[in-house]
């Protein structure tokens, strides 16, 4: 796919001239994408293995690593604008993997007005950006990380914890007070309505983490094992399951709201939040909107149909490559299967071409852009009479 792109932009690059060969990056990389060459001592980045967690970028003491996502300049720019927009001096940095809705964030940190900053893993925040925020007049920083054993990038949450500990000591010595940066950990879990369960066993079979069991005539979950991927929710035939923050109703409301914002032809993207990392100030223009999900497996076929009913002209699903799926490699594959089944049904009513599934990885941002561009180009407006009603 996309082999014609010869000079492809890669998300992470290593500048050998600056590299001091300290090996911090290679010791942290969860995917063994950065290694020290034994013969030469050179640090080498293998981009094909990189999953763009940003740990190396945020930790390199020599600034030898650059990243196209969430780099210090774009984050600083965002903070400047957001400080005006939200009229607040409280910053909440949240990992996409563990963040409840705004009400939940308010409850967790006891704040009502704040500048939100969503990132895929808080481990990718360089210390510098936290210090810059404070010099910009931010008085309180709250950081919401995933539970450590839940981190999609293995060490991201732990690294963030250690950094914050050190920064707090530094800030205290500099006279900014104690515990300026407040870290909390959270995980999003499945919720069961036992009255609706029909004991079909789908959740037991599909759960990548073996968290589901059928007990006393209904599904029950070991929440210590649940990793909040949403695969079971999308496959439950009886609507007995919900995933915190990605409840059916919430996604439905989002679909109709986004559809109203858009101009025809409208393209809606459901994307795995680990497959496509949105830039800090993502702007799709007026024809395209995206809904980020904890895994492509949470894509609910009913939501796709609902999008079409709401006058969306094309639906694009972006998932991680199967071997890079963060849900034990099961989510992405299952999503592909479910979408293929729905596409076949849609083709029976002439809408098959309006649904497209693609595997992408954040290391090649242009692949996703190209997939979206090609798909959007092929979608004509007004495919249904009265589609906007």
């Amino acid at each position, binding site marked *: 796919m996309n082999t014609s792109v010869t000079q492809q932009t890669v998300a992470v690059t290593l500048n050998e001239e600056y590299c001091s060969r300290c090996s911090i990056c290679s010791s942290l990389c969860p995917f063994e994408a950065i290694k020290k060459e034994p013969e030469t001592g050179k640090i080498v980045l293998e981009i094909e293995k990189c999953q763009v967690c940003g740990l190396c970028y945020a930790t390199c003491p020599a600034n030898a690593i650059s990243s196209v996502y969430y780099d210090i300049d774009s984050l600083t720019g965002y903070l400047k604008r957001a400080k005006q927009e939200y009229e607040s001096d409280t910053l909440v940095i949240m990992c996409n993997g563990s963040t409840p809705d705004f009400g939940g964030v308010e409850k967790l940190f006891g704040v009502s007005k704040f500048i939100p900053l969503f990132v895929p893993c808080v481990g990718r925040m360089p210390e510098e950006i936290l210090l810059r925020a404070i010099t910009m007049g931010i008085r309180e920083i709250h950081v919401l990380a995933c539970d450590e054993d839940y981190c999609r990038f293995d060490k991201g949450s732990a690294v963030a914890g250690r950094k914050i500990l050190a920064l707090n000591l530094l800030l205290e010595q500099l006279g900014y007070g104690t515990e300026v940066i407040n870290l909390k950990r959270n995980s999003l879990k499945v919720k069961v309505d036992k009255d609706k369960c029909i004991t079909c066993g789908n959740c037991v079979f599909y759960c990548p983490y073996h968290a589901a069991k059928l007990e006393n005539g209904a599904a029950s979950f070991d929440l210590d094992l649940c990793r909040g991927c949403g695969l079971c929710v999308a496959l*439950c035939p009886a609507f007995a399951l919900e995933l915190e923050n990605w409840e059916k109703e919430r996604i439905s409301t989002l679909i109709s709201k986004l559809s109203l914002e858009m101009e025809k032809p409208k393209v809606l993207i459901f994307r795995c939040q680990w497959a496509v990392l949105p830039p800090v100030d993502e702007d799709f223009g007026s024809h395209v909107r995206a809904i980020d999900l904890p895994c492509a497996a949470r894509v609910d076929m009913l939501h796709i149909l609902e999008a079409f009913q709401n006058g969306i002209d094309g639906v694009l699903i972006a998932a991680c490559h199967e071997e890079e799926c963060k849900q034990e490699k099961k989510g992405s594959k299952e999503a592909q299967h479910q979408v293929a089944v729905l596409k076949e049904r849609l083709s029976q009513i002439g809408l098959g071409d309006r649904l497209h599934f693609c595997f992408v990885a954040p290391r090649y941002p242009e692949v996703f852009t190209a997939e979206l561009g090609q798909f959007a180009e092929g979608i004509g407006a007004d495919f249904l009479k009265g589609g906007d009603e």
Partner: protein
Amino acid sequence: MIVTVQKTLDEIFDSLSPYTSVLIAGCDGCTQPPRGLREAEALSRLLELGARSRGKKLDFKVTTHPKQCDSYLVADMLEPQTEDVEAVLSLACGVGVQTLTQVLPELVTLPAQNTLFMGMEAREGGTFEENCAACGDCILALTGGICPIARCAKGLLNGACGGSSDDKCEQDPQKDCAWCLIYKRLQKLDRLDILREFRPPRNFRAVSRPGRLKQ
């Protein structure tokens, strides 16, 4: 469980053509893959979209309840929801469709599924496998727990036909030869002696069609 496959949307549209208000009724019983509320909701949306592109308007309600094959439950749970509809589109097996027809004679009940067989859900391979032919004269105790009536293409009672090759059926080399499976199973159980006994033709009167059982 009863394995079904959904009819094409064209066929469903054709059967629905005289009607505009339809209740789609799922079944939370043994119909597989599960034909509950999610399936009912998905089908209603597909049909609504399809109707729109055909310039038609169809009104759907969706519901589900356990065991569409239970005349009492249908009267108790489904009937109250049928007041303002012209037809019911059933997601259950053929038994469910006929139960509705009998319990709700004033309404038209239409099938959304083709009913295939009784089978096992082999989850790992993502398949359903026919395992029981409901013959009314079970011989599983004599065949190592493997049914030659349902799983042998010829329904033989006294060993393999001679057409199997590499333990596969000559009729469809993708499928196992049931008698090869039976032989290996009995060998493992050290009960090959069972096979030495000749089995007379099956009692075809064990179930007279249509079957009826007084409880």
